[in-house]
């Protein structure tokens, strides 16, 4: 067994660490406070060829593999979970459906500009009445003479409303039990974008409601040669997103540990650093131990994915373990910081606490993941 990263993966991780130190960490609090989506950051990431990590070289990406990708994601996520989450949405659900389902012509047309960082990717599954259970979606695509007519609403959609957005990939019902992904470029008549949602955390992320009011699309805007027969077929290639959200969670948990450790060594009460109290030490020891465990299962899932072996169970476990760790670690980080932890500004842990919660909700809620894992066990 070999736990070391390849040279390439280490260099990518170091690049992301250096980039995060220089271009992200110093601004994260401001972006959060002002709910500002830093479009210039994503353009710079394009210049560093960071926007196509999971897309093969022939489509403008760098195809670094899932292990290297997860290591990179942890670095950005540790600096600012919110912008890292936008990056995650672009790299996974915003790009991969085109790679998996798209025709050669569709890949050239839409995937290449995404992977090269000219455009930002987004994907719309969720609706007011359908989240965990996507088989309940009501957005419909009707076949017309010229192509498709899209009607419905999507909510909580990341990356669709920025100036560099390509426009969402929309999951819609094409028949009784048939589904397809539709590319809806920005500015298509009948495609409306709601105001930016106000959120507890991930506040720099651009999250919106999308409205499709008899939105007409040419026939070639359905990804692939034809629609598919089940929701499972439409979404199953995207489980790599769970590994990615696990890595996002690891980054946040690590940031909590780093901040808490530094604070506990500095902060003195009763004449000694609070790190000398057993109660504080136990918290730090637990955080560090769970972080190591969650990272191991995340990397194992990534490694299985890279080897084309079954990885779904491990990916679900990784996302579950890492996201629950992130929430717990952020709560303890605030606790260790005492009153300072509750305040915004001087220390980042209040922001970590707000950012963490969503990790237990997106890409499969904790409850759904437990259902998936239990099913995997044979229940």
């Amino acid at each position, binding site marked *: 067994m070999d736990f070391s990263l390849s*040279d*390439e993966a280490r260099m990518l991780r170091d690049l992301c660490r250096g980039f995060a130190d220089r271009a992200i960490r110093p601004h994260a609090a401001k972006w959060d406070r002002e709910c500002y989506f830093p479009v210039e950051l994503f353009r710079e990431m394009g210049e560093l060829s960071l926007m196509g990590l999971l897309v093969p070289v022939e489509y403008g990406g760098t195809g670094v593999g899932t292990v290297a990708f997860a290591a990179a994601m942890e670095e950005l996520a540790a600096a600012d979970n919110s912008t890292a989450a936008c990056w995650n949405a672009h790299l996974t659900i915003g790009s991969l459906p085109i790679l998996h389902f798209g025709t050669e012509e569709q890949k050239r047309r839409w995937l290449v500009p995404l992977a090269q960082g000219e455009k930002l990717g987004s994907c719309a599954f969720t609706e007011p009445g359908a989240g965990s259970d996507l088989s309940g979606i009501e957005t419909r695509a009707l076949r017309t003479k010229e192509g498709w007519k899209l009607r419905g609403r999507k909510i909580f959609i990341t990356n669709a409303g920025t100036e560099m957005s390509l426009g969402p990939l929309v999951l819609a019902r094409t028949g009784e039990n048939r589904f397809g992904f539709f590319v809806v470029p920005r500015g298509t008549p009948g495609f409306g974008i709601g105001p930016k949602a106000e959120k507890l955390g991930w506040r720099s992320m651009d999250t919106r409601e999308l409205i499709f009011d008899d939105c007409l699309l040419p026939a070639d805007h359905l990804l692939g040669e034809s629609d598919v027969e089940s929701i499972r077929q439409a979404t199953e290639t995207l489980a790599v997103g769970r590994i990615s959200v696990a890595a996002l969670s690891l980054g946040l948990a690590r940031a909590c540990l780093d901040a808490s450790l530094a604070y506990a060594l500095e902060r003195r009460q009763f004449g000694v650093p609070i790190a000398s109290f057993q109660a504080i030490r136990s918290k730090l020891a637990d955080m560090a131990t769970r972080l190591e465990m969650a990272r191991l299962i995340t990397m194992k899932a990534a490694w299985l994915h890279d080897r084309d072996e079954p990885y779904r169970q491990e990916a679900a476990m990784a996302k579950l373990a890492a996201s629950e760790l992130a929430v717990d670690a952020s709560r303890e980080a605030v606790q260790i910081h005492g009153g300072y932890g509750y305040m915004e500004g001087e220390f980042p842990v209040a922001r970590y606490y707000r950012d963490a919660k969503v990790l237990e909700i997106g890409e499969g809620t904790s409850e759904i993941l437990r259902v998936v894992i239990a099913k995997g066990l044979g229940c």
Partner: protein
Amino acid sequence: MDIVVCIKQVQDPDIPPRDFKVDEEKMMVVPPANVPPVISTFDENAIEAAIQLKEAKGGKITVVTMGGDKAKDSLKKCLAMGCDEAVLLQDPAFDGSDAFGVARALAAAVRKIGKFDILMCGRLSSDWSYGTTPLALAEALNLPSVTQLQKIEARDGGLRCERALEDGVEVVDVSTPCLLTVSNEMNNPRLPSVKGILTASRKQIPLWKAADLGVDAGSVGAGAATLELTKLYKPVFTGQCEFITGETLEEAAENLALRLRADKII
């Protein structure tokens, strides 16, 4: 324009002071666990300067370092940033070399590389800050040298260089081949792109031993060192905070100035 850059891998200077540890007995700096070493700060400026010259004038950049296996990571980073080739000098005979020993080995490597127009180094290393290796290297290769540069401009038949000095800027014209040392005023080193990383990871880094360089083992290493380390310790800084006040802001500023003069700071 062909350029050779000599770099050094050092302990990350950006670690928190509490992680900086010295073994006084062995007279060694104890590297912190889990913090990978990095390219010495000014050396990275030299790499960036070389890449910018290459982008403007074409040519090839070769990077050389002396070090252990980990030093390969620093060379790979240079390749990923845009350098063309890298060489690692590694031999037990080199262990414990002082600046002159290092310069002898580097000089032999530069001769082996062959033709070049500029040999570049950082102005100081971020670990010991001696700044002697580049000059010893210029001496060993009988090259003119200009140090502490903030700007290099290629002109017909030579280079125009600006030296960043404490009290101003000195402009020096120099013919090539020459040795230049680069200061941080010169540039902000770029990050390698992912594409650069992929290219770099496919490149081989040859390893040259003392024998490959024709370097006599007696002229390098601890035995040949002329520098003797007598004591190594971590200095203790004591801080004191004092508030300078006054009835008005102007008066407070005046009191501050008087106080600084009394302490011979201004």
